[in-house]
């Protein structure tokens, strides 16, 4: 039987690898061995550990999507705390995830000044951002950690997923601002950022949000 050292395995940008029959202890050991300073993102659920190495364009889409969300919250005078790609995990659920980006919005106040998150006590992030393939392992980890909302962007298409009875369903509205056509607005200005650049798209989006508020 061939055995390998974890550090012999290299996942190239844009590639994805699964490790099977990974115990919680092994998952912890892997997290520790890989450390904090790495380009890969891990998700763990049902004994499967997924290692993904994002492409540069993936990172770009993630940043713009995050910026649009922050602009939206800012225009609505809402607060947030962003936790980026922190590892969220729960031993009792045997699940862990490192989102592309994530936000505490409804629960932002609980996160102010907090350095460590313990999901057995703290709530999960209110919203996570996932760019590209959201694999079964990732979705199942999000389900187990009960993240209420995911914004998924793949093949230039944005969708909002909401957790309903333990499963994600596609939704036209966001829980953050249910009374605004957020999906439509974000999708439109995401597309605009590809053509006109990020800053003009962000400025246009802010204007759009203001019109939506005052137009009502």
């Amino acid at each position, binding site marked *: 039987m061939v*055995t390998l*050292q974890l550090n012999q*395995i*290299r*996942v190239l940008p844009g*590639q994805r*690898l699964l490790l099977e029959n990974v115990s919680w202890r092994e998952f912890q050991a892997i997290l520790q061995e890989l450390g904090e300073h790495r380009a890969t993102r891990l998700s763990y659920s049902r004994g499967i550990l997924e290692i993904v190495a994002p492409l540069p364009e993936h990172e770009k889409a993630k940043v713009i999507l995050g910026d649009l969300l922050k602009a939206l919250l800012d225009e609505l005078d809402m607060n947030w705390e962003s936790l980026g790609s922190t590892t969220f995990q729960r031993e009792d659920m045997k699940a862990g995830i490192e989102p592309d980006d994530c936000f505490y919005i409804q629960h932002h106040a609980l996160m102010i000044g907090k350095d460590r998150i313990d999901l057995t006590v703290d709530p999960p992030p209110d919203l996570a951002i996932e760019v590209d393939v959201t694999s079964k392992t990732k979705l199942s980890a999000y389900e187990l950690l009960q993240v209420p909302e995911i914004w998924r962007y793949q093949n230039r298409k944005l969708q909002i997923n909401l957790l309903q009875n333990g499963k994600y369903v596609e939704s036209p509205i966001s829980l953050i601002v249910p009374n605004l056509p957020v999906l439509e607005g974000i999708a439109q200005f995401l597309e605009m950022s590809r053509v006109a650049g990020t800053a003009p798209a962000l400025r246009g989006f802010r204007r759009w949000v203001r019109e939506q508020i005052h137009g009502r």
Partner: protein
Amino acid sequence: MLLELRRLQVPPGQRVLLQDVSWQEFETILEELGEHRGARLAYDQGTLEIMVPLPEHELRKEIIGDLVKALLEELDLEFCSLGSTTFKNQLMVQGIEPDQCFYIQHEAVVRGQDRINLEIDPPPDLALEVDVTSRTHPSIYQRLGVPELWRFEKGKLQINVLIQDRYVEVCESPNFPGLPLIEVIPSYVEQARIEGRNKALRLFRRWVQDQIGYKTK
């Protein structure tokens, strides 16, 4: 931390690199993975790449392989196709499993042979790689001395010929001189996709016959 190789699962369309793999380990891995697997391996001086193709990749590989076989048959060239056999050379610390490969000029040398050992036997005369973006593959073929490499990527055929140990892109295959295959092969691949494999192959054979007839006139 140690992990057993069999716990690694590469999803279709994905690849992973294993570093610091010795020749002995490469041989053991080949043995452990066995013959019946979807994964394709490439080994280049200590780095082992494991790639799992997508179904559409397999489809294109089959049809291009079939077109080459039809071509060889119509031209009455004896050949031997060895598919994705593992070609390796311990002295050069290289190994590769092409999408498809052919012995043409050296067909007689390997005829009836069950095992190929590149330390003694010649490399295949023509290798085919479909949608393989890996940069290491061409250099492995180069070092193994495969004289002609066809790369089919995003609907385009590129013919590479080994000249002074380096691949040079050419417009005509030395195995099939005088035939505009760079234009013709992709069009029949497309036709097979739309109108079916048998029809495309039939028309391709007719085209080859016309070309031969034209040349002998």
